């Protein structure tokens, strides 16, 4: 195999001058979650191209932003960019992510982005 087929960057961009993820605006439809919602991260079957880190699986966090619409990374790598999803910025408490995280720092948090397919109401 001389070229690896999977690639996140090749999909039909809507227009020069628009940018990515701006080019997918309006394509995901109604977002399932809103700012302030408590969500948990599903533990979907893994593929290499997932951008949902293992350390978030099963954790519960709070939606702080609806950041953009885009085909999810898992689909983009297979050049399957017909369906866009809403992407959410979710904040987790560190002591919900890591069992040994010190109680002394109970305010500490971690923010990261997840696409809608990875989230369910908590």
């Amino acid at each position: 195999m001389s070229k690896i087929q999977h690639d996140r960057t090749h999909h039909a961009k809507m227009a020069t001058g628009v940018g990515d993820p701006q080019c997918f605006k309006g394509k995901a439809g109604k977002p399932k979650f809103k700012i302030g919602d408590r969500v948990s991260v599903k533990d979907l079957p893994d593929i290499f191209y997932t951008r949902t880190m293992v350390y978030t699986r099963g954790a519960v966090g709070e939606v702080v932003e609806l950041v953009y619409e885009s085909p999810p990374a898992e689909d983009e790598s297979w050049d399957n960019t017909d369906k866009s999803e809403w992407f959410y910025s979710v904040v987790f408490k560190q002591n919900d992510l890591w069992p040994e995280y010190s109680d002394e720092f109970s305010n500490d948090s971690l923010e990261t982005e997840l696409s809608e397919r990875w989230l369910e109401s908590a």
Partner: protein
Amino acid sequence: MSDHDHSHKPAPMVDEVSDFEILEMAVRELAIDKGLFSQEDHRVWTEYVHTLGPVPAARLVAKAWLDPEYKKLAAADGVEASKAVGVDWVTSPPTQFGTPSDYCNLRVLEDTPKLKHVVVCSLCSCYPRPILGQSPEWYRTPNYRRRLVRWPRQVLSEFGLQLPPEVEVRVADSNQKTRYIVMPVRPEGTEGWTEDQLTEIVTRDCLIGVAVPKPGITSNAKRPIRKAIHPVQHDHDH
């Protein structure tokens, strides 16, 4: 090509060709010969990458410190705010639709006295290059990427930054299309400063979040590269 002279002024080039220089060129030429990319595309892209550095991001923060309305814009719409410092995330790169790896969604994370942000890309070291330039070595290491998400305070203390327990340390893991810079709290002792003076103390490390700006400190500290002793295993059940 070398303007090496015999005074004590350091020359920008060395007179010796190293095997590494040869290897880099050979790899690139072979890739071009095989059609993996074109020489012209490589030239255009290299020229663009050469233009990138941390000053625009520093200036964005300085402007925000001086102008409350701009600060609100920066926190709400980083892409729009970037334009004021000469960076158009969409049209500055050669493609005219952003770069494929940096995308077009800058978010400016606003620190407060109770909230300190620090940025990482645990998966691969994504970085807001169009406004901040190339990432430093330490940012790319598994040591930083795997440890910051799980032991942020330990990692920050290795960078010389200790924060009280009541301050919320928030790690931003840029795992998707958003790229982050941190807007630190404006430090004491900068009253009456100009935008240029403020820009000078917002170093790249401040914009990543591993340092805080201080009057008189205008460069990044040298970082020892430490091997991870307890790296995170990406399985939070353990």
